[in-house]
Each structure stands twice: as structure tokens, then as C-alpha cells.
């Protein structure tokens, strides 16, 4: 992003040209179903204004003129916001989520609303009504078996520089599948006003970018900061994350990463987070309960889809919600309601709330169980990421290496709450060491065109 910003400043490319290039790329890659809404007019208008500023050397900062995509769970004033659900098809919010104007104030261009699993429930990026995000840009698979982008911010990942959102891993998961940096800030650091929430206690806006510096800029943590002083770090490896399903290749990269830190003088120790295996269960209970109650407002009366109106109210609720929610969402709502019933409250909900939060330095784990997964073998990958969400900690997932099959393997760091800055410095150091080939636009275009011709 910095290179692009520099190019804009030096006049090598104008904001309008950049914007148009992005828009045409989006059109060419429509088969990826990355975007639900492309806000072409808005973006071009913003580009023109940005251009004026650059001409008069009044540019407003590193984000000026940079196209950003926003997951379709963020309320955008005047632009349709659907959460990839029939329930909100056609819903045009009258207000902006808090993070949106923050980006727009920095004069970023809002290029569109990206696709996702319906209501951000799902980890495959396959369950939205606007079509699954079919292609992971890395797919070189020749037959029709396409790779999932990961969910739920799948579209954001495919868009390559975007705001996602993260309940259980929804930013890092797709990042991992698509070879990006996925950053989940501490709960409370970034406002989630206007983010259509899945589970209030865990949802945060997440950032998907190509490198750590970009993530820092977009999160508006202000300024780039230096690299971490690795010799003073203590890296902890939680042994519970070494599960049987973990691909050996991933395990070896994990190991290599740990060695890398050690060679620079960091202390690397194995630790135990004893409740890890319970956390996924707790997560499910909390998540479904939260979902059940957050979805209660979508009853066909105010702003959402409504079925045939000539029926009594209760029937209308039932039909509307049957029609407009997909199976996954309905399943979660039903489970959530079950857990919240008086008779089940003690057994499920209260127990789930008692999940552990421990005191940490920096943790290092793989992000997902293996490399980017083919659709046919897709499994729920939240097993690693959701514990961190439950504790509200910041985490960042960055690409570490390419597997034998040429697919990315990502590793993840997480930290104390509100130590986001330190976390990013560690991530940046690692990124520099690994020198992972950042995806190049041209390379991607070539891949895509070759796929189209097949």
C-alpha cells in the first residue's frame, strides 16, 4: 500500500486511474464472487476529489486515494448492506458504521462491499446467498474443484485489502487461506458501532492486507513503527495446539518459526493453556446464544425482508425468517435459543462463560490446521482461532511459507489485550525474516486469465 501511495504522490498514477484499474479487475474476476456491491460511482467520485488534492499537494495521508473494500456487515450510509442474506437484501442503512467514516476521513476510496458467509456465520466463505467465494486466488487446480477462500470474510480476502470482521477467526481464517496478513485488534480498540454483529462480546472489525505495515495503517494505529527487539521477547508455544489433525508440513514450519526466534535471542518456551479443548465448545454456546438474540430484530417488520403480509403477525415472523435465513443461520438460532432456555441456562451458557483467560506474552501457533483447503475436504477451521476471540485478545496471522503444493501456510501471533502495537512489531519482524513472496497484482491477473481460458 505504501508503494501505491508513493506512486500516487509522485504522480506515477492518478487516483482515478488506480480506481478504474481496480474496478476493471473486479469486473474481470466476477467469477470469484468477491463483491456483493461495487460502489463504482461513489468510488470514482472520491477518486476525482483525491486527484484534486494530489494536484494541489494537499494529500491527506497514506490512505488518500487508496481503494478499500468493506465486508458487507458494516453499515454504509446510502450503500446497500446485506450481510449476504436475503433477510437484508435491499436494506440501505441510513448511517455509517464508525470505522467507515474514519477511513473515509483519511480519504480512502470505498470501492465496494465484500461477500461473506451469511451473517458471518461460517468458516468456509461458502454460505452466503450471493454465491460462494469460489476461487482462492492461489488455486492452480485444473479441474472444477475450487478452493475455498476461508470465511467468513472470504470476499474481503479475495479483494485483497479490506475490512473484515472477526467473531471467531473470520479475519485470520481467510487470510490464512489466501496468503494475507489478517489482523484482529483487541476487543475494544476499534469501535464496532454499525458492525452488524454476530456475537457482541467477541465481534471486532478485522483488517486484511498484504503486509503488516498496511495493516497498521488501516487500523490507524498511526505511523509505522520499527521492528521488535526480538532478543527481549518471550515466545510461548501452547502445546494444546499440537493436535493430531495438524498437517506435518505445517508443524514443521511452526517449528522453524520458533527456531528463528530462538536464533535471534528470544526465549522460546512451551506452555500449557489447559482449557483450550473446551474453548471451541464454549465458543459455540456463546456464539449461538448471541446469534439467536441478535437475529431477533430481523422479524420482517422494520428494515428486513418480509413475506406475504396478509397473515397474522406470528405467521409472518415464521415465514419471513424461514424464507430469508439460510440453513446455517437457522441452525445457529435454534441452538442458541435452546442453550438460553431456563432449564439449560446453568448447564450450558453459564459454564461457557467461565472460559479461561490467561496472562500472556507473545504466543505463536499455526492459524489453521493445514494449508488452504480444497472445498471437498473443508472442515471447520475455527479450532485455533476462536479461543483468542473469546478472550478479546489481539492476534495477527501472517503467511510463513509455501507448502509443497505451493499453497500458503500461515502462522499466528497473539498477545495481551491492548498490546496491539507490540504485536504488530513482532509480526513485522517475522515478516521481514521470512520474506514471503507477497502476492503481486500482475501474477494474480495472469493466473486468472489462464483460468478463464480453460
Amino acid at each position, binding site marked *: 500500500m505504501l508503494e501505491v501511495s508513493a506512486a500516487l504522490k509522485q504522480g506515477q498514477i492518478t487516483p482515478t486511474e488506480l480506481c478504474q484499474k481496480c474496478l476493471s479487475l473486479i469486473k474481470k474476476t466476477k467469477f470469484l464472487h468477491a463483491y456483493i456491491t461495487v460502489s463504482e460511482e461513489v468510488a470514482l467520485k472520491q477518486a476525482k476529489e483525491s486527484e484534486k488534492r494530489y494536484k494541489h499537494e494537499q494529500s491527506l495521508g497514506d490512505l488518500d486515494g487508496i481503494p478499500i473494500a468493506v465486508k458487507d*456487515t*458494516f*453499515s454504509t450510509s446510502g450503500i446497500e*448492506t446485506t*450481510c449476504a442474506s436475503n433477510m*437484508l437484501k435491499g*436494506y440501505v*442503512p*441510513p*448511517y455509517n*458504521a464508525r470505522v467507515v467514516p474514519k477511513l473515509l476521513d483519511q480519504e480512502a476510496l470505498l470501492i465496494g462491499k465484500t461477500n461473506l458467509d451469511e451473517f458471518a456465520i461460517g468458516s468456509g466463505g461458502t454460505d452466503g446467498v450471493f454465491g460462494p467465494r469460489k476461487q482462492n486466488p492461489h488455486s492452480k487446480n485444473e479441474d472444477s474443484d475450487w478452493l475455498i477462500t476461508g470465511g467468513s470474510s472470504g470476499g474481503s480476502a479475495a479483494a485483497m485489502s479490506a475490512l473484515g470482521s472477526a467473531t471467531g477467526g473470520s479475519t485470520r481464517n481467510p487470510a490464512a487461506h489466501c496468503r494475507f496478513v489478517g489482523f484482529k485488534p483487541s476487543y475494544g480498540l476499534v469501535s*464496532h*458501532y*454499525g*458492525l*452488524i*454483529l454476530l*456475537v*457482541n*462480546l467477541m465481534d471486532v472489525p478485522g483488517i486484511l492486507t498484504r503486509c503488516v505495515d498496511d495493516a497498521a495503517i488501516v487500523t490507524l494505529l498511526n505511523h509505522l513503527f520499527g521492528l521488535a527487539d526480538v532478543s527481549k521477547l518471550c515466545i510461548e508455544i501452547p502445546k494444546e495446539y499440537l493436535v493430531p489433525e495438524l498437517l506435518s508440513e505445517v508443524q514443521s514450519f511452526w517449528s522453524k518459526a520458533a527456531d528463528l526466534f530462538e536464533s535471534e535471542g528470544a526465549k522460546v518456551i512451551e506452555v500449557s493453556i489447559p482449557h483450550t479443548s473446551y474453548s471451541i465448545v464454549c465458543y459455540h454456546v456463546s456464539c449461538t*446464544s*448471541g446469534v*439467536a*438474540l441478535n*437475529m*431477533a*430484530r*430481523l*422479524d420482517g*417488520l*422494520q*428494515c428486513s425482508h418480509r413475506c406475504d403480509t396478509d397473515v*397474522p*403477525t*406470528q405467521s409472518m*415472523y415464521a415465514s419471513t425468517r424461514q424464507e430469508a435465513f439460510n440453513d446455517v443461520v437457522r441452525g445457529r438460532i435454534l441452538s442458541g*435459543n435452546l442453550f*438460553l*432456555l*431456563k432449564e439449560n*441456562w446453568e448447564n450450558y*451458557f453459564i459454564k461457557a462463560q467461565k472460559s479461561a483467560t490467561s496472562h500472556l506474552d507473545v504466543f505463536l501457533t499455526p492459524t489453521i490446521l493445514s494449508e488452504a483447503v480444497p472445498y471437498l475436504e473443508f472442515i471447520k477451521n475455527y479450532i485455533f482461532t476462536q479461543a483468542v476471540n473469546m478472550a478479546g485478545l489481539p492476534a495477527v496471522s501472517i503467511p510463513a511459507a509455501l507448502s509443497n503444493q505451493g499453497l500458503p501456510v500461515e502462522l499466528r501471533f497473539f498477545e495481551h489485550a491492548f498490546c496491539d502495537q507490540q504485536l504488530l512489531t513482532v509480526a513485522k519482524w517475522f515478516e521481514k525474516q521470512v520474506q514471503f513472496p507477497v502476492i503481486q497484482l500482475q501474477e494474480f491477473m495472469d493466473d486468472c486469465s489462464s483460468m478463464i481460458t480453460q
Partner: protein
Amino acid sequence: MAAPMLRWGCRGRRWAFARVDGGSCHRRGAPTGSTSNRIRGESSVAQQPLHTAQKTRKGEHKWAAVVGLEIHAQISSNSKLFSGSQVRFSAPPNSLVSFFDASLPGTLPVLNRRCVEAAVMTGLALNCHINKKSLFDRKHYFYADLPAGYQITQQRLPIAVNGSLIYGVCAGKKQSQVIPKTVRIKQIQLEQDSGKSLHDNLRSQTLIDLNRAEGQLRVDANISVHHPGEPLGVRTEVKNLNSIRFLAKAIGECQLPLLVSFFLLCTMSMRDKEGKQDYRFMPEPNLPPLVLYDATSLPAGADPQQVINIDQIRETLPELPSVTREKLVQQYGMLLEHSFTLLNEVGLLEFFQNVIKETRAEPKKVTSWVLNTFLGYLKQQNLAVSESPVTPSALAELLDLLDSRTISSSAAKQVFEELWKREGKTPGQIVSEKQLELMQDQGALEQLCHSVMEAHPQVVMDVKNRNPRAINKLIGLVRKATQSRADPVMIKEILEKKLSL
């Protein structure tokens, strides 16, 4: 959702019915007093069971009633409990609705400080324990006037608990005796209100207004009856009562004779465990625990704008009625029931105190005139104190005239009646116009007494024979002779002296 607990309504305005079927459990009467900011208090009158008005027949067991009240009161504030939109009485429908009030996806609640302060004040005034930490919950049910599908309330840990209120019950002959009673306050909680439903039965539709401000007090009564010593009986709920009179009527009608007829229905619905609405309570994740401080726990250097200090609020409380009543009893020697009456009528205490200030008459006299004569006239014509044609000064002047024995008490009543006609005359003017002054000439009066006594020797004989009614007859005769211009007290004195009694 199967059949809920039986609820019923009586004739009268604004009653709610709930259909006892598999459908909606909440149908609220139209129009309801929906409010945006609510304090809900729950109390129970468990100590003194309400006795039935009918006498029990011989051999019958007594019934005791247990009554619990759920009181919804709107907080007086400029904006709503969780959003910045205004609160205004009688605004056009849906004109004061923010994005949060409409429950648009992604919106979040923000707690209103003034409402918290009001809740603390209410808790303190009702002798509650204020919880320094309280929590918000979501109460989940589907209804058209609840756009979020849940209501934010304080079920588990409310802001105030375990309070009490002393009130007076009128008893005795002519309901003149006031007996102090105590009611327990179980808890006080802040909660969001639903919108207003307007049922249009003609077109079979319901219109929803999300403004939520009606400025009303609303009560749901829960009543059960049982034999003393036995477990509590089936609970019946009557919702949306908005006056004490209707409340009393509702409770009164839940008495034995009527009870028998729907007792069977009640037991059937309560036996069906599925029938109870499960609200699926869950902690409200968008609102952190509400933390309050007092003088001892206030962190040093805390910004007063950011914290609520219970002790500070306590200092701003006005004098509570129980304290005022106590003062009245001590200061003026009045009966406790009189103090209740004085406080229960709006503006009456102030009227009373103004009269006291301006008159020489004894407080007891003032009390009697204010509570009997003055209040009697007001009630007769259904007027408020503020609408009274008699000012405190006028009454004070009248009482002075009475006190100085310028006029008799019957004359005073006449004067009062004249004052009530609003002709703008002062008591002094009325007295002179109607020649109501008492005879001041002692000598002349003695003369009159003498002549009356001489004219009626038989009556005099009766008096001497200790016939108690005879002296009154004499007094009456003298009064007649003076055209009621003599003070009967003085007449009596003179007669007694003459008769050497």
C-alpha cells in the same frame, strides 16, 4: 409457546387481555402508557393479608389474599434510556425514533446518566439497598412493538433491592381512621420500554408507534388467595392498570365467590409446565456492569462527570413524606391520619402552612378547618387546591375573627360559604355586611339571659333538676333572642353563673 398463565381484565378503560391459546402471549390494551425510560418496582403485601368484605359463614375457612404489584414508572428525562432521541409527550407517531430505537442492525445502546440518577433517587427514597454493581439483561420475546425482539432490563442484579414504603389505610367508621402499613419493595430495576400498539379492530391491523413516551404510571397486579397456613394459591395477573381505583377493584374482585368459577381454569393452565413463557434471559453484552460509588469508594481524582456518587444523590433528595408527617405530628400535635390526608392532596400542605403563617389561631383549629371544611368543599365540587376560590390569607383572616370571638363558629361557616362564591369580598366585609358580629356587650347579654330565664321558668326548673338537655334549650332561646349574634359559649357561661351551677 403453549398456553400461558391466565390473565384477565375487567370492564373499564385500558385493560389488557391475553389470549389463552398457542399464539401470542401478550396482547396489550390500546392505547397503553408505553414509555421509553422505566423504573419497575416490585412489591408484595405479604404481611397483612387483605380480608374479604363479606362475612364468612359459619363453618367456612377464611381466605387470605397475597398481592404483588409490578409498577412501571416513566423517568422524567430529556432523552431516552439508551438512545439520544428526545422524550416528548404527544409528539407525532414515530417522530422521535433514533436508529437504535428502530433496532436497525449494528446500532448500540448508550446508557443515560440522568436515568441512573433517577433510579438511585427512587431507591433511596424507598429505603432500598443500592447495589454498587448492577447488570443489564436481555429478555427475549417476539412482539410487534418490540423491534429488537428483546427488551433490555435488569433481571438478575438490579440497581436497588429490599426497600419498604409506609402508607396509610383508611379504616374505621366513615373511613376516617388512618392505619399505617408497610409494604416491602423487592427490587427496582431500569428497563427499556416497548413501543405503543394501537389496535384497529375494524381493519384487523395494529399500528406501532416507537416514540415510547406517554408519561404514565402503570401497574400489573398479581393476586392469589389461599387458606392461611397452606401454600400459596394459583397466581392471577391483571395487567396495565393505571389508577388506584381500578387496582383496588381488580384485587377486590379476586375474592372467593368469583374465584371458584375460574379456579379450575387457573389450575389447568398452571399444571401445564410448557405454558410458561421462557424469556431466554441473557446478559446484555453491549452494556458493561453499572458501577456506582459512594463517598468511601470513590476513586481519588475521579471526574465527577464520569461517575455517580450515591451519597451525593442522597443529599439532593427532598424531604420525604414520612419525615414531613412526623414533623407535622410533632410540631402541631395533629393526629397521624391527619398528616396523611394533608400530604395526600396535592398543594394542601402548602395551603395549610400558609394559613398557619398568617393566623393567630391554634394549629388544631387550622387543621380542623383545612381538613374538614376546606377539603370538604373542594371534594364536593371536585376541585384541586390550586383551583380553590378561598385563598390561605382569606381563611387566615376568618380564623382570626373566630379566634378573637368577633364571630361565632356558625357565623364563620356562613362567611366561608360566602367566600366560596368568589365575589371578591374579604371575610371582614362579609361579616359587617351580614351583621354577623357577636354581641360584645356583656351587660346587655346578661340582661337578655335574665329575661329569657324569667320567661321560661319550667326550663329553668329542668336545668336545676340536672336535666342535661334543658340548658341547651335555654341557650337556644337566648340565641334566638339575640338573633344568633351571641356566642353560645358565653351564653352558657352566663347562664351557669346565674343558675349557680
